[in-house]
């Protein structure tokens, strides 16, 4: 079917600017296929149903909007955690700044290098989970990423890794337009914690594909930084095997345009997927969490917990779906999306959905929007807690359910501190 002309033109313009897909080795075909998907789907437009609440224009334009470099004296997030650091500057791997990539139980290579080989384990994952996640909803920006990603890490985990792997992004050029694609494969019995932080580029398109094998575990904690002018679209595609565990938490502070999509498929019995997000936004902040979880096995559990604190006209979006396929009996699905509106100008747009084709399941979802609890505020103040502090306490309490999804206490503490700091800097 022909694309609408506007969409066709926008897609052509963007693809022309990106140029040829140049790949050899195992990735050549998958990239060519991805490009074909983009051509066939066209890039998202403001009239697409899936982009009803978020205008994708800034994510699809030929050039990104310039974003100033964010300077801070603050210590980097996760700075105190013993971790293996992998640094990308404007989307380019920085070998000198990164740690040595060898570590017991894990195999790390660069996409830019590994893609030339004829055979690579990542072939089973790279672009495969993304392609798989294109139905029933199209995600053209992820296909674009698969086709054009210039770098990324390919991580294969064969055991319990002694420390987290941390992807740290550095933004050095106000015009940068980075496309990164990471692949993680946690083999049976393996366990990995992946951290991500830092401003990546003026515009950032990132895909993270995660294959969690039977009885493997993957933990993900991400801090989307304070670089307010960035434009970011990120996708997580995850596939879970039997008795596996997937846990992902994202803190987002600031950002004029962030769309975080997660597409998770529970394909092995007794698997568990938790995805959570806490965001705090001020002014022209726009943040969109779009989640699609498919239950395709028995006795699996999934949790979506998204909390948004919005002030001064900030916008928060949540689109979340639980799809329970036929035969996915004893599914336990939970979804909650809530916003705390600190004034009347801010808005929260939510579209929670359930689609269930099995008869023996327990699924619940809820979405609320509310203001600070005046009763609670007065109670705290009557005990001597100043109004601003009391407001912050209640705000952090509101976010707590999302933060509870971080398994590691030290990481949770760090995220909480960042949230608290943000609230102090953004008081009325």
């Amino acid at each position, binding site marked *: 079917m022909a694309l609408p002309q506007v969409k066709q033109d926008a897609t052509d313009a963007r693809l022309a600017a990106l140029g040829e897909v140049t790949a050899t080795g195992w990735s050549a075909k998958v990239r060519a296929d991805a490009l074909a998907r983009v051509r066939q789907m066209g890039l998202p437009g403001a009239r697409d149903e899936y982009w009803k609440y978020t205008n994708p224009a800034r994510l699809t334009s030929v050039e990104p909007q310039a974003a100033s470099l964010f300077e801070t004296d603050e210590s980097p997030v996760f700075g105190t955690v013993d971790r293996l650091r992998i640094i990308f500057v404007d989307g380019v791997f920085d070998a000198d700044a990164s740690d040595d990539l060898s570590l017991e139980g894990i195999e790390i290579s660069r996409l830019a290098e590994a893609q030339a080989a004829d055979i690579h384990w990542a072939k089973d994952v790279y672009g495969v989970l993304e392609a798989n996640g294109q139905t029933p909803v199209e995600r053209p920006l992820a296909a674009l990423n698969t086709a054009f990603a210039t770098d990324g890490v390919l991580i294969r985990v064969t055991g319990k890794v002694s420390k987290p792997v941390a992807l740290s992004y550095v933004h050095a050029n106000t015009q940068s337009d980075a496309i990164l694609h990471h692949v993680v494969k946690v083999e049976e019995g393996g366990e990995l914690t992946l951290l991500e932080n830092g401003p990546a580029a003026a515009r950032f398109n990132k895909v993270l594909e995660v294959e969690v094998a039977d009885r493997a575990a993957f933990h993900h904690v991400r801090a989307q930084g304070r670089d307010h002018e960035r434009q970011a679209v990120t996708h997580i595609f995850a596939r879970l095997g039997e008795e596996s565990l997937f846990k992902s938490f994202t803190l987002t502070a600031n950002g004029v345009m962030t769309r975080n999509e997660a597409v998770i498929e529970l394909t092995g019995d007794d698997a568990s997927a938790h995805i959570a997000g806490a965001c705090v936004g001020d002014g022209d902040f726009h943040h969109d969490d779009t989640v699609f979880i498919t239950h395709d096995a028995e006795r699996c559990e999934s949790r979506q917990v998204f909390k948004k604190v919005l002030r001064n006209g900030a916008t928060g979006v949540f689109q979340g779906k639980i799809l329970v396929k036929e035969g996915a009996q004893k599914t336990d699905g939970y979804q909650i999306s809530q916003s705390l509106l600190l004034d009347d100008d801010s808005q929260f747009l939510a579209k929670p959905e359930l689609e269930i084709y099995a008869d023996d399941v327990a699924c619940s979802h809820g979405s609320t929007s509310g203001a600070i609890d005046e*009763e609670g505020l007065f*109670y705290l*103040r009557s*005990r*001597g*807690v100043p*109004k601003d502090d009391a407001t912050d306490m209640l705000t952090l*309490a509101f976010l*707590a359910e999302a933060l509870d999804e971080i398994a590691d206490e030290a990481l949770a503490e760090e995220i909480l501190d960042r949230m608290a700091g943000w609230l102090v800097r953004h008081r009325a």
Partner: protein
Amino acid sequence: MLEIKNLHVKLEEEDKQILKGVDLTVEAGKVHAIMGPNGSGKSTLSYVLSGRDGYEVTDGEAALEGEDLLDLEPEERAAAGLFLAFQYPVEIPGVGNMTFLRTAVNAQRKARGEEELSAADFLKVVRAKAKDLKIDADMLKRPVNVGFSGGEKKRNEILQMAMLEPKMCILDETDSGLDVDAMKLVAEGVNALRDEGRAFLVITHYQRLLDHIKPDVVHIMADGRIVKTGGPELALEVENNGYADILAEVA
């Protein structure tokens, strides 16, 4: 300690006068009780004194140790030494009871220019006081008042009072919903705090609390005013005959 003169209060949202000229003086070291029918304005008085939104003072004044209360923010009133044990303590999901207590204690110390209590010192004090009120470690860890029984909430109020050591304590129906044992605990908590430099205003319907916390003065409030003031015997009279006689007498 607390001096209220001719206090008139209406609701901010509607044209409804609730307090219609309250005069009340509570001296340091004393316990005053306020009794009165439901809806007479007792809780409103306690809220207005502690600075809750939604009320408009149309006339009169209220001072704590000579300092005008009505211009202060709720937290400033607390730091000045005012404490209200709520008739309906508020649940605060997501805020741990212990964190809440420590934040409150330290906020008040800071406001008064005192040093903050170290985590270890705080813990020691809070554990001892909680034990006296039979508040266990679990209750200290749980979110403030969430899932607490009525009695637990009231004991938690008294724990806060014990930790904050206010000068002027207002207890709004702290006895309602308590069984005899819980009431004894609460009364012991209050009596332990009785001191030359501290005063209490105990709002209650029942004589039985006053058996444990012996008041020096008893006031009867009706329709937004203190209509009668007397000694402890006044509470007994209410207990035996209800309010009807008293109200008829002053009408």
